[in-house]
């Protein structure tokens, strides 16, 4: 097997940014506003994520956590402000005079190359078998040879513990199995940033642990930057390096999981944690 058919991304950035003191964060929200009509979901939100960081977003429903992931995946448009990914605007292009204007489909597709997403409801394609769900985009979007894509898909299915399900239809799988396939499908695109949107919320309780363990393994064994919206505080504690507490479209508090869970500074964080833990 070729070395590059390893299931997961090789550690990128072998050449560290030596000397440069301030390394540009991989993701930077710069006064991002998201409005639906008069309803303000995100209110001049600023936050950054460093390369390789595993960040968990927590907070009450409606606090804008999922919107952040959807903005990053370009499923929604920002109302104001700019999202920067790896130093480039995610959903804007620079015009001749240096200002930014909303990007077209072509530029958006360029931005999406770095980012993958796993959804709450899995969203596997029911018209494709498990293997094709994973190989479709690598072959037709990345232009990978079919044999190579299939070999990688088999490796990824092995990684997520579903090597026997290559020829299954999504409808024949349990929720937990579907979510594992969805994770494999996202990894097959070799994203630098993986967005996880309440990936265990739709699962039966007994299937949650398996999916969380898998994500923990991926977090430990790769350098993929992860942004995770979850109600699983154990996952936030075990896997992430940084927890962001959201309320009403703003970051109320951020810090290491130890700090947030054992010694929250903010009253709103204490209330939230008391309610969910």
């Amino acid at each position, binding site marked *: 097997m070729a070395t590059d058919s390893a299931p997961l991304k090789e550690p990128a950035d072998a050449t560290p940014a030596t000397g440069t003191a301030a390394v540009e964060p991989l993701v930077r929200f710069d006064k991002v506003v998201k409005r639906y009509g008069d309803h303000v979901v995100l209110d001049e939100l600023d936050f950054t994520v460093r390369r390789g960081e595993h960040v968990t977003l927590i907070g009450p429903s409606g606090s804008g956590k999922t919107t952040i992931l959807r903005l990053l*995946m*370009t*499923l929604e448009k920002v109302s104001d402000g700019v999202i920067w990914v790896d130093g480039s605007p995610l959903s804007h292009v620079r015009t001749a005079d240096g200002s930014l204007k909303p990007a077209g*489909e072509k530029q958006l*597709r360029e931005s*999406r*190359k770095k*980012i*993958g*997403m796993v*959804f709450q*409801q*899995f*969203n*596997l*394609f*029911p*018209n*494709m078998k498990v293997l094709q769900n994973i190989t*479709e*985009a690598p072959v*037709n*979007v990345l232009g990978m040879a079919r044999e190579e894509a299939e070999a990688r898909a088999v490796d990824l299915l092995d990684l997520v513990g579903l090597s026997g399900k290559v020829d299954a*239809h*999504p*409808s*024949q799988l349990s929720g937990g199995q*579907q979510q594992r396939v969805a994770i494999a*499908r*996202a990894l097959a*695109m070799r994203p630098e940033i993986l967005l996880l949107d309440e990936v265990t919320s*739709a699962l039966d309780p007994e299937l949650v642990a398996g999916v969380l363990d898998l994500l923990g393994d991926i977090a430990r064994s790769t350098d993929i930057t992860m942004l995770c919206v979850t109600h699983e505080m154990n996952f936030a504690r075990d896997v992430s390096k940084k927890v962001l507490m959201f309320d009403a479209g703003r970051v109320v508090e951020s810090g290491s999981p130890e700090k947030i869970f054992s010694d929250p500074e903010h009253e709103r964080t204490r209330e939230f944690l008391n309610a969910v833990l």
Partner: protein
Amino acid sequence: MSDFLSTLVDEFPQVRAGLWVTLQATVLGSLLALLLSFTLGLMAGSKLLLVRGVSRTVVEFFRGTSLYIQLFWLYYAMPQLTGYELTPVVCGVVAFGLNYGAYGSEIVRGAINSVPRAQYEAAVALNMSPFHRMRKVILPQAWVQMIPSFTNLLIQLLKCTPLLWLISAADLMTVVQQIRDRTGETLTAYLTLLAAYFVLAYALTLLMNLLERSAKRRLGLHTGTRSLLRTRSAEAATTAGGAR
């Protein structure tokens, strides 16, 4: 044996030719309708107002003008305008295609809209192009939803083919009618026609059921053999794997 039935047997070549005209008009007309359904249905989902507007106008026009009048237009009025005459069967194919294509485009549009938005989003998250998303993700799922409604249209189109009599195409109806006129056996003649069209319609239903079954299989939805014989449209197929 009655006069009618013996004449029917004697004139079998004509009857067969009439049946052939009916089948030609049905099959070619529905193929043209299918093509127009997809073209107009996809145009209806365009981001561009102009493209949507053209689709809307064409659909409303052909849906809102009687098939009867469209046939007369094509057969009698068009030659006066263009000096170019179409054969009756071609007129039928074009009129049926335009008319049912207009109805069919609404089916295509509705089925595309019924595919859960989550499927579109999953395709975006995999960085598929708009064309790729439509072709490999949205349309294969929408297709299953279209088939039962297309079956209804196909049967309706078949049942409209006796209109060809108006523009003097010798379809099945016309040929049997002529035999009735000669033998005077009204009852037997129309009973024969009832039976003939029912058999044709049922055969088309069975074919479409087969098509629907294979489309569902591709979505991993298995249907029993009994579903093949039913004549009523299936309940809206549920898509697995999408948003529940």
